[in-house]
């Protein structure tokens, strides 16, 4: 009974604070209001802008088809919220239920939602990263800066890293007619996300569109002139490349440093939470009042063996935010699990790429429909005899079917006949993902003490 009263009180006049004013934060706030939360709502964001949409930044904005200033996310309803924009959260006091802000202020909450997302991983050499002409692309301001530079017709653009963002940037540059070199450490573009077999198709696409694609290579240094302008890049094969723009696309770092020492189970790989979006503390115990959603969350997924997944997907941010918001103001029996099947899309070199499931779990891949040579196909990934993911190049309309196959743990390889199955699609081949034993992030939690009552768990921030 008292629990019901507490919930009733929370919904009526409680204080909810959302740290992270981007897609997930905004959608969560909207869901809270939609589901009847009438208390005070505060959104905290370190950027000065209202929530905006990121997918256009690496596509339409770089092409000049859309302005970086005009990517605001549409509002579904009035929020009646307090906005604290342009001020970062710097700390959290779990016991006192208080968020500390960079301007010295503190904000109290009854429920906290963390949606701080990720930021672009910077070039590892700070002095080189400072050179005029070295860019990253994550925020609206990044996109505006890079667009201005591309519009000034640089002699050559170097894209460092051929993941999705890097490949989209290279595509936009080619569409603008700019010479582009892409340097990728792996054997092919998109290899970490989709494996080497599909990566080869991505490589063909890049080369067919005039990209100077160099794989199996690292950029070892960026060199500037006396005025601090980027002039050339040094590559691990001993060659140099004259370039005046380099875009660092080496993935993302999760924004969790502000939680160091707070007791929340946060680290470089995100904030661990349960399937209901409730954050774990560093002891592995689920919290009742702290929730997580979006890119910064790591949650166990029932369909994928309860593995903790962290996803940088637009659709995941929306779905998880809605689930988190619902659960924040619901009793335990009304809570819902976040069961969203991972899905993302990309548009590059005139091809629409879309994936469902978790391709990187795949051991084998089969071309279930279409043909790799046509650059128009659906690849299906298998893991331990079941379908675990699918990716399509210009064939998105079949993906709903494969999503259902993933959800129902359908057997792999598929044995049925289907339309557009070609000879190459009769047998699966190894998906060819990079060796997972390559260096990764170290442990971030250590246990001290011997007897159960003495044992303490300590969070040790690791370098991303």
């Amino acid at each position, binding site marked *: 009974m008292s629990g019901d009263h507490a919930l009733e009180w929370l919904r009526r006049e409680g204080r909810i604070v959302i740290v992270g004013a981007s897609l997930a934060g905004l959608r969560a706030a909207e869901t809270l209001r939609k589901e009847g939360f009438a208390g005070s709502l505060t959104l905290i964001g370190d950027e000065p802008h209202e929530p905006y949409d990121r997918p256009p930044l690496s596509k339409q904005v770089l092409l000049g088809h859309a302005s970086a200033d005009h990517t605001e996310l549409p509002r579904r309803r009035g929020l009646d919220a307090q906005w604290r924009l342009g001020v970062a959260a710097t700390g959290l006091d779990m016991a006192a239920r208080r968020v500390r802000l960079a301007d010295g202020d503190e904000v109290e909450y009854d429920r906290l939602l963390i949606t701080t997302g990720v930021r672009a991983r910077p070039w590892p050499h700070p002095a080189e990263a400072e050179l005029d002409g070295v860019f990253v692309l994550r925020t609206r301001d990044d996109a505006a800066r890079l667009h201005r530079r591309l519009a000034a017709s640089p002699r050559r653009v170097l894209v460092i890293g051929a993941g999705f963002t890097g490949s989209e940037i290279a595509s936009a540059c080619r569409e603008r007619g700019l010479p582009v070199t892409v340097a990728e450490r792996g054997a092919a573009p998109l290899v970490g996300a989709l494996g080497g077999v599909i990566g080869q198709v991505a490589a063909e696409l890049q080369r067919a569109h005039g990209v100077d694609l160099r794989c199996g290579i690292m950029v070892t240094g960026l060199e500037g002139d006396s005025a601090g302008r980027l002039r050339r890049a040094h590559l691990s094969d001993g060659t140099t490349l004259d370039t005046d723009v380099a875009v660092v696309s080496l993935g993302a770092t999760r924004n969790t440093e502000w939680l160091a020492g707070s007791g929340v189970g946060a680290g470089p790989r995100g904030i661990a939470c349960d399937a209901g979006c409730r954050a774990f503390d560093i002891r592995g115990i689920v919290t009742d009042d702290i929730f997580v959603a979006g890119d910064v969350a790591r949650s166990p997924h029932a369909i994928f063996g309860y593995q903790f997944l962290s996803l940088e997907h637009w659709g995941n941010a929306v779905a998880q935010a809605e689930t988190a918001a619902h659960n924040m103001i619901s009793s335990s029996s009304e809570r819902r699990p976040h069961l969203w099947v991972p899905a993302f899309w990309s548009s590059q070199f005139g091809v629409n790429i879309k994936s469902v499931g978790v391709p990187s779990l795949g051991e084998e891949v089969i071309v*279930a*429909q*279409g043909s790799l040579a*046509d650059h*128009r196909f659906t690849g299906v990934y298998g893991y331990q005899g079941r379908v675990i993911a699918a990716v399509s190049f210009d064939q998105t*309309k*079949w*993906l*709903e*079917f494969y999503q*259902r196959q993933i959800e129902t743990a359908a057997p792999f390889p598929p044995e*049925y*006949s*289907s*339309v*557009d199955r070609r000879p190459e699609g009769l047998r699966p081949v190894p998906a060819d993902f990079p060796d997972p034993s390559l260096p990764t992030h170290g442990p971030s939690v250590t246990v001290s003490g011997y007897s159960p009552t003495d044992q303490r768990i300590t969070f040790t921030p690791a370098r991303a």
Partner: protein
Amino acid sequence: MTQDTLLRQITDYANRADPYPLYTELRKKPVRQEGDELFVVSTYWEIKSLLHDPRISSDARNLSPGAAGTLLQEEEASPLPPAFLRLDPPEHDRLRRMTMRPFGPPETPRRVNGMRGELARIVDGLIDGFGDRKQVDIVDDFSYPFPVTVICRLLGIPREDEARFHAWADTIAAGLDPDPGGDPGEQRRATHEARTELGMYLSGLIDERSGAPGDDMLSALVTQHGPDGRMTRMEVLSTAALLLIAGHETTVNLITNGTLTLLRNPDVLERLRDDSRLAVPLVEELLRFEPPVQLLPQRTTLADIDIGGTTIPKGASVWLVLAAGNRDPKRFPDPDRFDPDRPDIQHLGFGSGIHNCFGAPLARLEAQLALTALAQRLDAPRLVEDPPPYRQNAVLRGPRHLNVSFDGLRS
């Protein structure tokens, strides 16, 4: 009531005016076996899932001999090869892409919207043509001539030939009606003759356009050299015939059904008259509530498929009853209510998946403009009879006539 009689009742003309109670009955079992090799699917999620299932073929050649029946004979007898509607990938994808090139994005993103002014002029011209009359047949005087004029202009059919088209298209569309009570031999013969004549006419037009291409779609289909190469002459013929017929029969019913629904819901009609922006959600709801294509009878299975508690065996004929799925209470709350304010309206009116209606953007715009113009210009419109007389066709369902009286025209 046996399963067999349920399907027979749906195709029975007596139930044409209101098949929805039958659909409700049908949905009690998501997948129903009708006879040996015919399966009828009537619930939203099952239909949606089959529309995205690569184990489903649109190519009649994949039917088992037993399920094929007259359908296959009809295909073989046709003088034109199957259009992309009746093909599977990769041929389907290639032809559809090549047809899309002069019609829509990415190559021609503004084609449909660029016709907005012309469409509005055609609509106004037709309404002006009502003259001093205080009663018109919305079908003959408005919702039929409008899309027919549009598709002829789009394809580049000379205006003086439009009348001949109506006759051919009527016959061919009637041939799509799987009327179990009709005479299949006679129906086939008439369809065959109409297709042959249409083919010969189009063939002549193609010769003309190859030499002197215009800005129309037929010229584009004949002359294009895209990444997919070019269409053969027979492919152009099939494609043009498909567009012509699809452009004829479906939008007519959408507009007529829309007019009927608005007259049955005068409050919505009034809202539309005062705010033309309502036309967009209203047409979406219409596509859910009274879809012009009620069911897709031309799919077959390439493998055994377990769905809705039934195994549909390989080679079976599958009918997807879109109109029943659109009113599935498991998908849409209060589904039998016409409500243009629904926030969530992912209807099946245009199908889904790779065969998702090619002409949807054009059909939407035509219906939005047509219904708005009627709402704004007819003074105090009312139905003369309800229900109106319907066409024979159970697949492409709509009134044959829709007599509407009114006090006069507003300018």
